[in-house]
């Protein structure tokens, strides 16, 4: 099924290489930062590809822009802000941690805590039923009634 995802991306993509040799900066530290930043920016016309992976022309423009800003002395944060100002929140592959997006970011810990709580509660109530001596028939019936209601 994956081809459906990638067909469109590749239809829009032209040649095979993403980062072209002529884009690479001479300063390896700046280049490393440029690669890190581009891996977090989405190609605006592709399907779920970062500009670092994409071979679409607009991605090349964005990669060059990132490097241009870095050479001009911007910090990583400033470069990203610069791109987001012009292309919108859509290009951020890592959603911001503000406003409603907090629901997204907190979903994992919140769900985990809730699930662990429920699981622990269920096991505890089950475990306490594991009395060493067998229960009488009446107790057994009452217990399963209680367990059933849970």
């Amino acid at each position, binding site marked *: *099924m*994956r081809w459906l995802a990638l067909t469109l991306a*590749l239809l829009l993509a032209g040649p095979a290489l993403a980062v072209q040799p002529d884009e690479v900066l001479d300063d390896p530290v700046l280049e490393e930062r440029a690669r890190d930043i581009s891996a*977090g920016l989405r190609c605006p016309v592709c399907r779920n590809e*970062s500009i670092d992976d994409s071979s679409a022309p607009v991605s090349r423009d964005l990669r060059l822009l990132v490097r241009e800003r870095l050479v001009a002395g911007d910090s990583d944060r400033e470069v990203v802000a610069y791109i987001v100002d012009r292309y919108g929140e859509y290009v951020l592959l890592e959603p911001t941690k503000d406003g409603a997006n907090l629901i*997204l970011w907190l979903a994992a810990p919140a769900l985990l805590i809730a699930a662990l709580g429920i699981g622990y509660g269920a096991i505890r109530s089950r475990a306490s039923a594991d009395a060493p001596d067998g229960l009488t028939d009446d107790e057994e019936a009452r217990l399963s009634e209680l367990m059933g209601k849970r």
Partner: protein
Amino acid sequence: MITELGHFALVLGFAIAIVQMVIPLVGAHKGWRGWMAMADPAATSQVILVGFSFLALTYAFVVSDFSLRLVFLNSHTDKPMIYKITGVWGNHEGSMLLWLLILVLFGACATWFGQGLRPEFRARVLAVQAAVSVAFYAFILFTSNPFLRLAVPPLNGQDLNPLLQDPGLAFHPPFLYLGYVGLSMSFSFAVAALMEGRVDAAWGRWVRPWTLAAWVFLTIGIGLGSWWAYYELGWGGFWFWDPVENASFMPWLFAAALLHSAIVVEKREALKSWTILLAIMAFGFSLLGTFIVRSGLLTSVHAFANDPERGVWILIILAIFMGGALTLFAARANAMRASGVFQSVSRESALVLNNILLAVSSFVVFVGTIWPLVAEMFLDRTLSVGPPFFDAAFTPFFVAICLVLPVGAMLAWKRGSLAKAARPLWPAALLAVALAGLAYALQTSRSSLGPIGVLLGVWVVAGSLVDLWSRTGRGDLAGRIRRLGRLPRGDWGKMVSHAGLGITVLAIAGHLAWQEEDIRVAREGESYAVGAYEVTLVGVREVQGPNYISTMADITMSRDGRRVATLNPEKRYYPVADMPTTEAGIRNGFWRDLYVVIGDPQTGGGWAVRTHIKPFSNWIWGGSILMALGGLISLSDRRLRVGAGAGRTARREPSDGVPAE
């Protein structure tokens, strides 16, 4: 003519499925044997009819019958025969027919292997299975009919997408579908059990092999897709957290949870209602995956609005089956009485923890996948949720799973002791820490990703070996080795699968942390160094393929003056589809892959060349293969053999149902 017969067979199958959905259900309710027995021949005849229909479509592709719209859109006379055949499912309509074929095949398996099941139960299972297939017959016939003709047949077709003309991808969809649809079995069993209001060990014994089989197929399907992306897309990525990938990953996680909790039902008669819920959710996520892929909804809300019909259909199918099953669950879950009890520290609890981690991680993938849609619809924000989010939100769950797994796997059933389970694992823990320290000392970067991956991977692999060894009991070495060969296949399967997971985890971390990359312009004859390797671009030539034109480079790589590889990366151009593709030149190695991609000729002369050294690449898929293999070994266990002793289970249970572990 054959095509019309295929079309007719499909309609006939639809009619039979409707009957199979109703009659056996009524029969089971009233206790009428004849009505119940009707389900068996109906299920078998559905396979014959849909199978014929599928063969008819295949025939149309093989003989290039361009009067069929589908063949015209997706085939071409110049295409190699193998891709004419795989082209049958390389498109929406054909793949839905394949989906249906697999669905009715699974339904029939319940007939063929399920003679040991109680007749009422089998009738209900087959009726539910038929209900699912009715929905998909209707979907195919009314929205995606593969047998539509063209009034004026064109001379030649429009070719299959060149990306699909690849062995890795050609067989990716059938495996994925076997997995998706295999989960319909557990769904039907769950719903039938809810109708009867009873779940017992025999139920777990039945559901587990089917879930295991589905999970094995999903593992192979996902692995194939990931392998394909690695060598075909040209930058060596293997997982992109794309919605379509997530669509297959969510059912995989749920199936993994389900097959573990079914163990508890089978062996301990506990966690019944939870297992039923998991079975429903697992198939629900399969349907959701189909919806995501087929509707195009997640590409963009607008793509969905342009062609809403198919998406809405699947959404309705999803709503009916999930809504119905969950309502039934709410009404009947209380009837599932657990007879097995267990303490807080026990194998059962460890499996509950496993289920929680797998299910919650799957929900996290789900939330991340649909969040852009939610934000666009309700918050009026267009945003993306990409790999950085999933890496951050999902990875901790697998770190936790890997940490807990070896200990949990060795805990005793019912009432365990952490200290007792952990004692034999100390050597494994020491080995893991030592190797992680070694990795940290040897690596040049300061990244912690690689060492952590080594720690977790070695811990899980060594832990599973210790687990298997501990099953041989006490005594002298020779006796234990002899007993090793006589252990149940289930124990071996468990070890192999868990070790596979450890290897995959280690490989992914090592691969990401320690790969090297070089991008440059190279002239023909030029040599340069990448890592420890000397790379030479010997030459570039044009090659004519069967239905493409290729620009092929000859690149040699040598190490310490000894040639290790001659690679031929290609850029292919498919004129019929007007599409370029990349074929990376890859030399697979045990420790690392050498991976070269040729790019465009440069204006100043020379070619753009990208060279990667990718450590542990093959271990990623090797681990996946081991996981699948472990599942298969487990399936071959006599105890789990589909249908083995299903009828005798109730009587045999006390004697050998609960192994003393």
